[in-house]
């Protein structure tokens, strides 16, 4: 039983490390700060969840009340990071966008693409226009072009 739990926790921890490696490599290689944010925000969250889950399994391998509480605390860290990490990703990205850092876009995708909506079945308004892609010309097209891939 002990071996199984230990093996499970090692598998969880090392898969978390692989995802963290993805995040760290992505943070180095991606072209602009928006895409780097994707690597940071996502790889970070899942790897934290996996490693903390691994540690919780590890703590639970000699089971008593105290270690159960400690395991719950470790899971609480994962929940805390799952709540806060997307928020800080969003906030920092918003701060950059408001600051005027232009995103690197592919050559046919500058400006804002409208997907329409709403995407809820049975919602009455705006259905006729939904899912029609239309481009809105960007005010700073030249700047976006300069940065385009």
């Amino acid at each position, binding site marked *: 039983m002990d071996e199984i739990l230990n093996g499970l926790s090692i598998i969880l921890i090392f898969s978390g490390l692989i995802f963290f490696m993805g995040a760290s490599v992505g943070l180095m290689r991606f072209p602009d700060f928006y895409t780097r944010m*994707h690597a940071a925000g*996502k790889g970070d969250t*899942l790897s934290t969840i996996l490693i903390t889950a691994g540690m919780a399994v590890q703590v639970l391998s000699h089971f008593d009340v105290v270690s159960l509480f400690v395991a719950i605390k470790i899971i609480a860290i994962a929940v805390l990071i799952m709540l806060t990490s*997307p928020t800080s990703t969003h906030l920092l990205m918003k701060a950059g966008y408001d600051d005027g850092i232009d*995103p690197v876009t592919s050559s046919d995708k500058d400006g804002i693409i409208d997907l329409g909506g709403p995407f809820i079945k049975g919602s009455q308004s705006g259905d006729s226009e939904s899912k029609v892609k239309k481009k809105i010309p960007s005010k700073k097209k030249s700047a976006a072009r300069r940065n385009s891939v």
Partner: protein
Amino acid sequence: MYRTLIFSFLLITWIILSGILDAFHVGLGILSCIFVTWLSSDLLFSNRSSRFGDRLKQACRLPLYLVWLLWQIFLANIHVLRISFSPRMREQIQPQIVRFRSGLKSDFEKYVLAQSITLTPGTVTLQINGDVFLVHAISDAAAKGLMGSMADRIRHVFSTD
């Protein structure tokens, strides 16, 4: 009524944190929980008009959604992992900013949708203006994924029937 609920949540948290179950420490815990409830009970449960039965239903549906979300997070990470290790990365990403209307009514639904968008494949919420979401997507596939079932699922979780 909601205050009692918040108090019991906080007390459970205290007992888990403390791990010492003698009268002195639990008494301190009760005092602290009363203090925190008095200080900041207005922060939790911003919408106090809904009935408890509805809350209970929502609380039952939320774990199912979270399991689905965890699976989506896993897929998201595989996606980012593949992109960041691929040698021809620049051809695989088509960064773009898209916007759409979600059709969700309450603020908390929008919050859950925005957090889920940020956690799932290749998309990060950039701005929320009323009902309009501005989203940065890392590739075409990710942008198309936004039109999937997520908003519908959230609507289902927080619906009152």
